[in-house]
């Protein structure tokens, strides 16, 4: 260990020039880890710190705000080539930064990009990695242990991580709680110039394709209408879209719906898809396999509609209707439109 100072790195998640809220959740987790290690071993970590590491362009103003979340400093690799995610390049840049600063561990929120980046980085660093973590602890001898769900969340597994190196950990977004900003403190921003030309990249990005702009992402939507096997194939799914339209919500599905190619991947709710926490979620014709419920159990209000009174989904629902989606939903839509809800 190059230094006994516990320096925890969190990777800044940003999109279109804005820092995403998961970053603040990571800062809170890092803070928790520091407090825990302090309690366990005074002399080790009395001067522990949290460093945010950012790769991107045009982020200066946003990064200055991070002081309000208990982050002590920012290491910022800026460059137009880094403006958009590139797994190979990002991993190489992070390796360089790691070698220079030798942090104690690197935390990321688990998403499509970090599920690519984290293992790349851990391989380059030749270090331990645990992905999709829901809880981690640090013991008196500075051992890190991480807990993660397996087998669609039916089970949890706990792992100890190799102590001699800097572990890479990705945390599931549903455990990253939103953090209130405190008064902004002065934060040191260290600019790192790294020339991407020095890396011999093996892949070449030729094009970025946009998804349809009218479709709101399900993990950002306040209201989500989701359908499962019980809705049926092909046109049957139209009823879900119609309800989403009348409630100004977004459409999601369970894994079978995605595998039947009725909806694109990014609309999959569940352990292997998106984890969502909308204010209102309709679960229509969904039995409630763990795969799905792990992705929605943080939703504020859940309405379940299913013909089977014994369906597991009802354990997760606040309001339940036992009935056929195709009989109930048209009447729900009718009622909503009749009430002229948007004019009340």
């Amino acid at each position, binding site marked *: 260990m190059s230094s006994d100072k516990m320096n925890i790195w969190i990777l800044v998640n940003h999109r279109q020039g804005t820092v995403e809220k998961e970053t603040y959740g990571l800062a809170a987790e890092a803070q928790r880890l520091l407090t825990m290690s302090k309690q366990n071993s005074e002399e080790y970590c009395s001067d522990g710190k949290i460093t945010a590491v950012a790769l991107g362009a045009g982020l200066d103003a946003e990064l200055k705000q991070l002081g309000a979340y208990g982050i002590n400093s920012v290491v910022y690799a800026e460059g137009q080539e880094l403006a958009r995610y590139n797994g190979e390049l990002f991993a190489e840049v992070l390796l360089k930064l790691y070698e220079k600063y030798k942090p104690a561990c690197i935390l990321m929120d688990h998403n499509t990009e970090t599920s690519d980046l984290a293992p790349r980085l851990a391989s380059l660093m030749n270090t331990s990695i645990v992905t999709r973590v829901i809880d981690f602890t640090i013991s008196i001898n500075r051992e890190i242990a991480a807990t993660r769900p397996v087998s669609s969340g039916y089970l949890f597994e706990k792992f100890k991580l190799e102590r001699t190196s800097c572990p890479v950990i990705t945390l599931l977004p549903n455990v990253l709680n939103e953090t209130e900003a405190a008064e902004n403190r002065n934060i040191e921003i260290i600019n790192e110039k790294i020339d991407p030309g020095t890396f011999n990249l093996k892949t070449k990005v030729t094009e970025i394709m946009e998804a349809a702009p009218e479709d709101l992402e399900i993990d950002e939507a306040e209201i989500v209408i989701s359908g499962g096997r019980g809705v049926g194939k092909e046109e049957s799914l139209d009823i879900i879209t119609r309800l989403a339209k009348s409630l100004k919500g977004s459409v999601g599905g369970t894994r079978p719906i995605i595998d039947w190619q009725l909806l694109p991947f990014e609309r999959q709710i569940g352990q292997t898809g998106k984890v969502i926490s909308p204010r209102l979620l309709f679960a229509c014709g969904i039995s409630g396999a*763990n795969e799905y419920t792990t992705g929605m159990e943080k939703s504020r209000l859940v309405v379940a509609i299913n013909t089977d009174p014994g369906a597991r989904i009802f354990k997760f629902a606040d309001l339940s209707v036992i009935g056929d989606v195709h009989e109930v939903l048209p009447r729900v839509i009718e009622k909503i439109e009749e009430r002229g809800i948007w004019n009340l």
Partner: protein
Amino acid sequence: MKIVVCVKQVPDMESKFVVVDNKKIDEAQIAFKMNDFDEFAVEAALQIKEKMGGEVIIVSAGPERVVKDIRQAFAMGADWGIHIKDPEIDAGDSTVIASAIHKAIEKIGDADLVLTGVMSEDNQFTLTGVMLSHLMDIPHGTNIVKLEVADEKSITVNRELEGGLNEVIEMSLPAVLSIQSGLNQPRYPTLPGIMKAKKKRLDVMTAADLGLSEVGAAGSKTEFIKMFVPVSEHKAEIIEGDAKTAAAALVNKLKNEAKVI
């Protein structure tokens, strides 16, 4: 083209999971199957073979029971395979598994393309494919939702990104790709396929056969501590009545009680 597909056998997620000694699941209650994501990878490999010619080789690690799903891949059309069968390898973490698969691929020799599922349904680490490409020092793409092999030298793929974006990337071969589900429609084995599968070549290899010295805890960077069942509690209100009555009551509750619409 010589295409290697890494296949993992996983518990069917509909099985009953009972934990024994805080360490493992009771396999007597589990139905095992091929990892869904790997099925898409097998299908992708078969489609490339149909277009370009060549062979599809399956590599899978695990105890005797995994033979069933290697044969399943054979029945779909894969040509032959390697069964990495060594409890010391199974006792290791992703690093050990990736190293063992790497050695097996070296034994096969001259692979043009290596496909894995993007993750396993049970552990969902999303690690093996990336680690493998690092060990092999060849290009890699994760979350592949589309792939086109133009010739035997290079490949163009679409990767899934955050925010509903797709990234189109080009890489030279050999390469490793981690396949996302929904990329294709995996075929069902035909009866002649199933018959032929029984006779296809399956080499069994241990760590010693592969020349892998660091296995089990020695080769691992993480140490498994325990496995346990999480607890969850929730109560529900059932809205009674026929579809029309229930629909009206539901909209009323959402609007006037929960005030969410």
